[in-house]
C-alpha cells in the first residue's frame, strides 16, 4: 500500500518539475522521464476505476475480500493467520455486547426476568465483559471458549440475541459462536470462511488492481477497485475518489431494515441507505458512471423477513405481506427492489438517463454468487465500453 502511495506521489511531483538547464544529459533524462510518464498515463487510461460505496456494514469489504479471493492470489496462510486476532476480537466484542445488552434490558424492560442471568453465569459475564473492554485481548483458550459458550447458551443471552437488532451485534456473531471449539484450538488458522465473516470497520481507502481473467482468458479489462469506510465520518473522504469512475458498486444491506446505525442509534439503517443512495446518484461526477446496485445480505433477509415484517421500516410502511414461505420472501424482495428502482429514476436527472443501472441480488459471503455477479458486471461494463467506442 505504502509503495503505491509513494509511487504515485513520485509521478505527480515529476510532472510539475521544470527543466530550465540546457544540459544535454539532463535533457535526455527528462525525455526518458516524459516517455515513462506517457507510458504510465497510457496504461492508466485502460484501467477501469470501480468504487464500492454504501453505508456502514453493508458488505463492501466482504465484496472486496471476495474479489481478492477470486481474481488475485487469495489469502495465503500468513494472511489468514493475521486474521486470528480479528476473529478473536469479534468473539469478545460480541459476547460483551450481548452481556451488557442483557443487563440493560433487565433494567429497562417490564419483562425483566427474561433477561436475568443465573448467578454463576453473571460472574462469567462480568469477567468477559471486562476482557471485551480491554485494548488487547488475550488469545482465545479452551477455558475462555467454554465460558463464552456457557454464557452464549444462557437463555437470557439468547433472549437478548433475539433482540440483537437493537444492540449493534455484528452479523458474524452466530457463525463464530457456533465454531468456538475450532477457534480456540492452539493451532487455529482461520479458514477462507472465517476471513470472510470477520468484521472490521474499514477506515480510509483501500484499493486493489485485478483483471478478471475467465476460463477462456478472453477478458482483458484491468480494474482498480476502491473500498471505503461507510460510517458517516468516513463519507467525507469519498469525494476524493469521485473523479473518472467507470462504475459505482453500491452495496445496500436489505436485511437491516429493522436496525439502527452504528454511529447514530436514532437513525434506521435502511433510511440512511436510501438517503445515501440518493446523494450518490445526484453527484455531478457520476453523470456517466454506471451504477451496480448490490442488494446484499439476502441470506439474512430471507430468514428475517418471515419473522419481522418489512413495514417496520418507514420507507416500506405501505408493504402488505401476501403469503408465507418462499413466495413471501420473493414478494418482499421484489418490493424492496422496486423501491430502489423508483428511487434511482427519481434521483436521475434527464441528462444522465443513458447511464447503466443494474440491480443484483447478492450474498457477499457466497463466493459462487459473487463470482457470477461479478462476471455479469464485467460483461456489462465491457459492453458499455464497446458502445462508447462506437463499436456496438
Amino acid at each position: 500500500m505504502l509503495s503505491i502511495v509513494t509511487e504515485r506521489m513520485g509521478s505527480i511531483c515529476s510532472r510539475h518539475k521544470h527543466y530550465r538547464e540546457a544540459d544535454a544529459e539532463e535533457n535526455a533524462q527528462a525525455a526518458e522521464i516524459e516517455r515513462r510518464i506517457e507510458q504510465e498515463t497510457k496504461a492508466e487510461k485502460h484501467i477501469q476505476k470501480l468504487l464500492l460505496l454504501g453505508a456502514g456494514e453493508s458488505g463492501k469489504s466482504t465484496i472486496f475480500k471476495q474479489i481478492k479471493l477470486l481474481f488475485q492470489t487469495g489469502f495465503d496462510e500468513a494472511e489468514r493467520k493475521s486474521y486470528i486476532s480479528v476473529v478473536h476480537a469479534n468473539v469478545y466484542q460480541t459476547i460483551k455486547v450481548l452481556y451488557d445488552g442483557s443487563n440493560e434490558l433487565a433494567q429497562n424492560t417490564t419483562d425483566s426476568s427474561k433477561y436475568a442471568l443465573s448467578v454463576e453465569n453473571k460472574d462469567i459475564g462480568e469477567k468477559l465483559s471486562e476482557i471485551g473492554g480491554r485494548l488487547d485481548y488475550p488469545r482465545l483458550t479452551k477455558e475462555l471458549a467454554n465460558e463464552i459458550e456457557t454464557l452464549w447458551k444462557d437463555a437470557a443471552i439468547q433472549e437478548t440475541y433475539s433482540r440483537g437488532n437493537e444492540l449493534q451485534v455484528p452479523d458474524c456473531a452466530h457463525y463464530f459462536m457456533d465454531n468456538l471449539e475450532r477457534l480456540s484450538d492452539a493451532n487455529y488458522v482461520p479458514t477462507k470462511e472465517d476471513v470472510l465473516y470477520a468484521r472490521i470497520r474499514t477506515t480510509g481507502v483501500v484499493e486493489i488492481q485485478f483483471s478478471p481473467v475467465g476460463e477462456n482468458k478472453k477478458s482483458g479489462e484491468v480494474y482498480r477497485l476502491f473500498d471505503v469506510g461507510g460510517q458517516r465520518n468516513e463519507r467525507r473522504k469519498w469525494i476524493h475518489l469521485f473523479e473518472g469512475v467507470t462504475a459505482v458498486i453500491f452495496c445496500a444491506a436489505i436485511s437491516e431494515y429493522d436496525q439502527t446505525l452504528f454511529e447514530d442509534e436514532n437513525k434506521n439503517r435502511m433510511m440512511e441507505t436510501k438517503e445515501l443512495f440518493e446523494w450518490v446518484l445526484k453527484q455531478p461526477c457520476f453523470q456517466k458512471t454506471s451504477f451496480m446496485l448490490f442488494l446484499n445480505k439476502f441470506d439474512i433477509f430471507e430468514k428475517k423477513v418471515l419473522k419481522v415484517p418489512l413495514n417496520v421500516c418507514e420507507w416500506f410502511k405501505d408493504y402488505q405481506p401476501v403469503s408465507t414461505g418462499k413466495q413471501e420472501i420473493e414478494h418482499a424482495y421484489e418490493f424492496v427492489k422496486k423501491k430502489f428502482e423508483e428511487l434511482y429514476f427519481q434521483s436521475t436527472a434527464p441528462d444522465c438517463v443513458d447511464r447503466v443501472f443494474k440491480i443484483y441480488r447478492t450474498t457477499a459471503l457466497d463466493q459462487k454468487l459473487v463470482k457470477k455477479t461479478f462476471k455479469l458486471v464485467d460483461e456489462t461494463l465491457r459492453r458499455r465500453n464497446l458502445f462508447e467506442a462506437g463499436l456496438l
Partner: protein
Amino acid sequence: MGSCGKDGGCPSDYIAVAISLLCFILLLIKATLPFLVHKVPRPKGSGFWIPVIQVFASLNLLLSIVMSINFLKFKKKHWWQSCYLWAVWVEGPLGFGLLLSCRIVQAFQLYYIFVKRRLPPIRSYFFLPTILLPWIAGAALLHKKKRLNERCHLVTRWIIPVVFLHTTYVAALVGFTVAIRHIEFRFHELKDLWRGILVSTTSVGLWVTAYILNEIHDDIAWLQVTSRFLLLIMASILVLAFFSMSSSQPLLSKMSLRKREATEFETMGRALGIPDSGLLLQQEPAPDIDPNEPLDKLLLNKRFRQSFMAFADSCLAGESVHFYDEVHELAKIPVNDPVRRIYMARHIIEKYVMAGATMEVNISHRNRQEILATPDLAHPDLFHNALNELLQLMKMVGSE
C-alpha cells in the same frame, strides 16, 4: 432650545447620534477585522452566531433609542415611526433583551463547562430564545395594553416593572460571572468578562437613571435633552464594551489582532503551553523502534507517531491518529490543572467527537454519547473507551 427639546434636533442630539454611529462602526470593525485581515477561519455553531446576533442587537438598541425619543426632527409623522415598534419591540426583545441574553448564554456556557465541568445541557440555539421569552411577553403585554403616552413614554406605574426586567438580566449576568470568578482562565476570559461587566454596569446604572429621568419628567425640556444625550452615549459605550468581552473562543481571540503571535499557536496543545507538543525537533535523538511491539506502545514514541500519522493521512485514515495525538497531549496536563484540561478536552470534542465535526472519528454511538454526556470534562479517562475503539481500527490500517 425650547422647541428642540420637545421635537428633537438639538445640537447635542446630533452629537450624540454621531458618537453612537462612531461606536457602532468601531464595533463592526472589531468584529470583522480578525476575519478580514488575518483570514481566521470562521468558527462554527454558536461561536459564530452569538457574536453576529450581538451586533444585530446592538444596532437595534441604538436605533431604537434614536427613533423613540425624538433625537431627529421629522417634518411629518410616518407609520413606521410608531412608538410601539421602536420603544417596545426593537428596544426590548430585539435590543437590550437580546444583547444581554446573548451574554448570559455565553456566561452560562462558561459556567457549565468550567464550574460544572460538563457540556451545557441545553443547546444555545434553544436556550437563547427561551431566556428571551420574558421580553417578548413583556413587549406583547405593553403593546396590547397601550401603556405609552403620545411622546413614547411609559406611564409611571409601568416604569418599575420595566426597569426591573432590565436589571434582573444584568444581575443574572453578574451572578454567572461571580460563579466562575475563581477559575483561572487561560485566555483572560474572566478578566475580559469583569472588565466588560464593570463598564456595562456603570453605564447601565447611569443609563437607568437617565432613562427614569427621561421617562418621568417629560415636561422639563433641558432635562429631556440632557437625559437623552446621556442615554444614547451610555448605550453606545455599553454596546462597545459588551462586545470587547471575549466570548471564550481562546484561539480566535488570541489570534485576533496580533499576527505575529498567531503563528505560535498552530495547535491547541501549544496554545495551552503543553511541553514539547507539536512538531518533531530535528536534534532529538531517535530511540530504537521495535516493530514487534503492540501499536499502542509504539504510538507513545513521537517519531513513530509522526510517521504513522503521515502514512494514515495518505490513506485518508488520519483522523484517528490525530485524535490519539491530541489525547496524548491532554494526558500530559496534570490532573490538578482542571482548567487547562477542560480547554483541551473541549477542543478535542469539538474537533473529533461531535457528529459532523471537521475531523470526526469513527466511533460508536455509545462511546460518543458517553463523552458528550460526561459529568466531568477534566476526567483523565474521558476519551479512554473511544481511544480503545480507535486503536483497534488503527491496527488494521497499520497491517494493510
